[in-house]
């Protein structure tokens, strides 16, 4: 640290605080601070803002705006400051300290803010002279200031401002501009009393009406309530249905894609794809609404409508995103040689080829993912695609579940010549880990049965299965068990441990031995595995259980470096879980 050369600073680029490794240098610490502030803002205020002129009980209102929306100004400003000051801040390589006492005070302040937030969500009123709002805002501001000083000492702030000149001023103005623009944009889809509000809803309503007018002679359109349909079935095109959510997601995806692959993309040609992608997203939402009304009008079941409504938006977004990414890769007018553009070939496999004249094609060929990705990912993707299709048409009861088994089995069979090179042998540790994961998985249900925990939400799967004929019921169960024990363990282990855990270490993941998995790659891939098992975004229980299960399977894999151990562990836990479900009728576990 005290040595002037870069070697020691490279080693000390992270600083351990209470067992957590923090960035030791200014730039990393600023990014860390930004992430913390953004997360806390989301938790404390929901981060959603409100339509101007509308107030939320328990929030201060200045000039028609709730105080929570003002929090967006410093966040936008900070991000602009980081984005444009990145390279100038990166030069400041001195190690900086971390204020533990200040951080502890910050945590206390945030605890108070969160207590107020939770109290407000529980409906507790505590607003004598509006002191609640003032108190919450004051604690939030003080707490955030303490966090800023804990992460970056005052001297380092001064150094950052000196290094970036007037950037702080421009960033502040940009933050205000961004906040104002955001509040105006919300008017586009809010069905409020202002004249300019609900533009997206009106446009969508008219477009859907224009399309459906050709098919439904008795179509009724009510612009006042944004209702459209027939006497048999009608929908209200609310703000969330107006296509704006898809536009937002597509815009975020495009921004990230263009930024990540900026060296492989020609500008400004690629910008032309942005309006195309946004237009496609909006048109697909029109088609989604038209299809929904036509299905409902034709007497489609509620379950079918529900499945269609839930899945169609995501399918449209996925299609648009994939089409956009394909366009940037396949249209030569928008694509440029990645390695030649960057001028850096050191990180590429077979590095040094770029120095050889005429090797540009080789570099382009070498810039993508490893060809082994197909065999490791496609079995799992087949399950996801089959699940999407089956949920699209089946609604509440996933009667097309066998499709998942068949799809993944076909893909596994297709890639088996490649996959059989993997070590599928296993020892005692695999089954033992599987039993442990099973016991862990059913522990909450077991505790609930003893009265030590809350009962989980009742599942309607048992009732749905009971309504089937015996042949259909047992066929469905047979496929469900077969998938749980055979195809799902193989596909998920290939995807999460075989691909993701190793891809986090090296792009050429198939050259990384299973015994060389790092703690970071194991933990991150296990968290993603846990997220995949969440039944909704608030399902923390399955997130934790899935993550622990992922850690256990990864441990089985790393123990002897054999994929067979992880697959057997996964299969054993799923088999025992199936036996538990069928034996005790605990359908919520499926």
């Amino acid at each position: 640290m005290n040595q002037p050369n870069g070697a020691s600073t490279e080693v000390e680029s992270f600083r351990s605080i209470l067992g957590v490794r923090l960035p030791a240098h200014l730039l990393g610490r600023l990014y860390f601070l930004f992430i913390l502030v953004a997360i806390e803002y989301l938790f404390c205020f929901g981060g959603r803002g409100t339509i101007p002129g509308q107030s939320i009980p328990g929030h201060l209102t200045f000039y028609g705006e709730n105080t929570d929306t003002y929090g967006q100004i410093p966040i936008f400003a900070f991000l602009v400051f980081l984005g444009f000051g990145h390279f100038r801040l990166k030069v400041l390589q001195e190690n900086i300290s971390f204020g533990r006492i200040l951080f502890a005070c910050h945590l206390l302040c945030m605890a108070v803010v969160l207590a107020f937030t939770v109290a407000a969500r529980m409906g507790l009123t505590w607003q004598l002279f509006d002191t609640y709002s003032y108190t919450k805002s004051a604690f939030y501001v003080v707490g955030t200031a303490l966090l800023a000083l804990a992460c970056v000492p005052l001297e380092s702030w001064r150094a950052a401002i000196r290094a970036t000149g007037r950037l702080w001023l421009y960033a502040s103005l940009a933050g205000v501009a961004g906040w104002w623009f955001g509040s105006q944009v919300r008017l586009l889809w809010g069905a409020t009393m202002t004249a300019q509000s609900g533009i997206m809803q009106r446009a969508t309503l008219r477009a859907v009406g224009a399309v459906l007018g050709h098919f439904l002679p008795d179509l009724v359109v009510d612009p006042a309530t944004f209702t459209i349909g027939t006497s048999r079935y009608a929908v209200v095109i609310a703000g969330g249905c107006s296509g704006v959510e898809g536009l937002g997601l597509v815009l975020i995806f495009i921004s990230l894609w263009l930024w990540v692959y900026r060296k492989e993309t020609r500008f400004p040609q690629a910008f032309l794809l942005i309006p195309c992608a946004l237009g496609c997203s909006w048109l697909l939402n029109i088609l989604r609404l038209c299809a929904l009304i036509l299905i409902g009008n034709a007497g489609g079941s509620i379950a079918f409508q529900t499945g269609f409504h839930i899945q169609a938006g995501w399918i449209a977004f996925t299609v648009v995103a994939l089409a956009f990414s394909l366009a940037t890769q396949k249209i030569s007018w928008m694509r440029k040689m990645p390695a030649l553009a960057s001028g850096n070939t050191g990180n590429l496999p077979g590095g040094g080829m770029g120095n050889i004249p005429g090797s540009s094609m080789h570099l382009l060929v070498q810039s993508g993912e490893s060809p082994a990705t197909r065999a490791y990912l496609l079995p799992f993707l087949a399950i996801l695609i089959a699940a999407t299709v089956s949920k699209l048409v089946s609604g509440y009861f996933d009667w097309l579940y066998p499709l998942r088994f068949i799809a993944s089995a076909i893909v596994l069979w297709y890639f088996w010549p490649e996959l059989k090179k993997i070590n599928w042998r296993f020892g005692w540790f695999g089954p033992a880990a599987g039993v442990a994961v099973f016991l862990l998985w059913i522990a909450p249900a077991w505790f609930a049965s003893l009265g030590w925990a809350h009962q989980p939400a009742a599942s309607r799967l048992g009732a749905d299965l009971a309504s089937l004929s015996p042949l259909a019921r047992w066929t469905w169960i047979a496929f469900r068990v077969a998938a749980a024990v055979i195809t799902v363990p193989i596909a998920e282990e290939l995807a999460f441990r075989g691909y993701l855990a190793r891809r986090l270490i090296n792009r050429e993941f198939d050259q990384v031995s299973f015994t060389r998995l790092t703690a970071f790659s194991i933990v991150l891939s296990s968290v993603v595995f846990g997220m995949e098992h969440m039944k909704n975004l608030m399902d923390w229980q399955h997130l934790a259980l899935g993550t622990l299960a992922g850690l256990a399977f990864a441990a089985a894999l790393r123990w002897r470096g054999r994929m067979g151990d992880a697959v057997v562990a996964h299969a054993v836990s799923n088999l025992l879980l199936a036996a538990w479900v069928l034996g005790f009728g605990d359908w919520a576990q499926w």
Partner: protein
Amino acid sequence: MPQITTRKELHVTKSFLRYVLMALGLAFCTCTVAYGMAFGPHPHPSPEIDPGMAISALTLLAGSLAVLRIRRNK
């Protein structure tokens, strides 16, 4: 000297416009997604994007992109 001043002003204006454009983009994205996917009570019973399906949908997208970016064997 006047030319230098003009260049400086132009540079400042360009820089400021870049910052503003970035902030506008951020504002549009964040408020759009926050509106559509914020946790807590949702005012719309049938949204275009169901947050409950987010993880599997994004996993499918990410996996598909990884497969699409496989380099060609030549």
